[in-house]
């Protein structure tokens, strides 16, 4: 069982100094139908901003782990702890954006209302989110008529309501073309740069290489390693990760 490492990232510590975790996952287990889908998953994410890529082949349990952390489902065993001063919501973006049958603006206003943001503050935040996600030009368009990339950026903007310190992104670019993927990755980097910790699920090695600060490698419901991206891509510690990078991992 590989030790989970708390990774000190590049010292970009404008953030509250001090170590400690933002989120600590301990011996997480999840079973369905007699099969163990997640087994003794343990790791920590630090409080400093950055992008953690949760990498692994199909069926490794990546999306499941993300939903457990997001609180959408409960684990059968183990714990997920947040730092004592953890505040605010957890933003989530799914592979398929689920948008209301309303305009872009109305979608964001709806999210602001759900988050119980005071009415008088909403207009200002709305404008900021539109700029952030580069959606100002289509604010009045029906959300479901947008391009795939725009839709996913809107989902991201919606997830940013309430200024989450943790964002969970589940293969957000899986159905986007390269240009839209690049735009979305730029947005993710910008958000991380503004102080959020992002946990992004992907099975796309190239994407991981492009944006990961550190990599969590998941295989068959187990964490194989958690290392800084540079280390991971240079010399993966686990045989599974090495095989995956070489395209020879059997699932």
């Amino acid at each position: 069982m590989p030790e989970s490492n708390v990774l000190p990232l590049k010292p970009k510590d404008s953030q509250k100094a001090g170590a400690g975790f933002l989120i600590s996952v301990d011996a997480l287990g999840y079973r369905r139908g007699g099969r163990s889908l997640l087994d003794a998953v343990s790791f920590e994410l630090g409080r400093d901003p950055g992008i953690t890529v949760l990498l692994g082949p199909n069926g490794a349990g990546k999306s499941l782990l993300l939903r457990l952390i997001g609180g959408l489902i409960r684990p059968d065993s183990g714990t997920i702890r947040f730092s004592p001063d953890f505040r605010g919501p957890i933003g989530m973006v799914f592979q398929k954006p689920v948008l209301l049958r309303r305009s872009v603006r109305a979608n964001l206003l709806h999210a602001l209302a759900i988050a119980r943001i005071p009415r008088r503050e909403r207009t200002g935040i709305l404008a900021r989110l539109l700029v952030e996600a580069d959606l100002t030009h289509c604010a009045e368009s029906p959300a479901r008529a947008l391009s795939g990339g725009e839709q996913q950026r809107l989902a991201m903007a919606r997830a940013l309501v309430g200024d989450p310190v943790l964002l969970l992104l589940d293969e957000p670019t899986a159905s986007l073309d390269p240009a839209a993927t690049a735009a979305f990755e730029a947005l993710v980097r910008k958000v991380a740069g503004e102080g959020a910790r992002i946990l992004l699920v992907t099975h796309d090695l190239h994407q991981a290489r492009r944006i990961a600060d550190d990599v969590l490698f998941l295989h068959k419901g187990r964490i194989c390693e958690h290392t800084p991206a540079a280390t991971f891509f240079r010399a993966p510690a686990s045989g599974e990760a090495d095989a995956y990078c070489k395209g020879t991992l059997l699932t």
Partner: protein
Amino acid sequence: MLFYSQLLEIVALSLEVSLVAVMLAALIGIPLGALLAIGRFPGRTALIVLVNALMGLPPVVVGLGLYLLLSRSGPLGILQLLYTPTAMIIAQTILVTPIIASFSHQIFADLHREYDEMLRAMRASRWQTILTLIREARHALITAILAGLGRALSEIGAVMIVGGNINHATRVMTTAIALETSKGNLRLAVSLGLILLALSFAINLALHFLRSRLERAAHA
């Protein structure tokens, strides 16, 4: 023979009775459908089965039951509602509510499946969830309401019994058609039937345009 003014009177009463009944049925049926789709409470499955079964309720049975209730010798006789448009509205509301509730249940169940994860990720309260779904369902709900209106307008068994087909008081399109048929005025009866058909067609057309306008606003 039927005169033009009489015809107008009959058509107006038909519309009044059925529209009010459908409105009431929507006010009951839509929240009920939402509750069945989203709520988790004991007896929910049984209630879903019951509502679906009630869709097939024979109008005559509703009329008879309501007659026994509203008859002056019945438990609610004191209200003096028998042979009034109100009694007809009640009968049609009973007939239409299960239809609208059942359609709404399906609509809300589908939407709930689609939006549930997203809304939970947004930490929406139950109440916020229901309001969001009702708002999102509004186009589809028009279909449910139309189905109910179709049933109400074309129904005869219940309104005949509790309305009594009284001239100038409770005569509606369907009971007038039955009366003219029994007089052997088949051509007049068919003409009335065609008017009923045209009416229902016009309402459907109007709501169809309303719906596609709403949808254009939301999608295109």
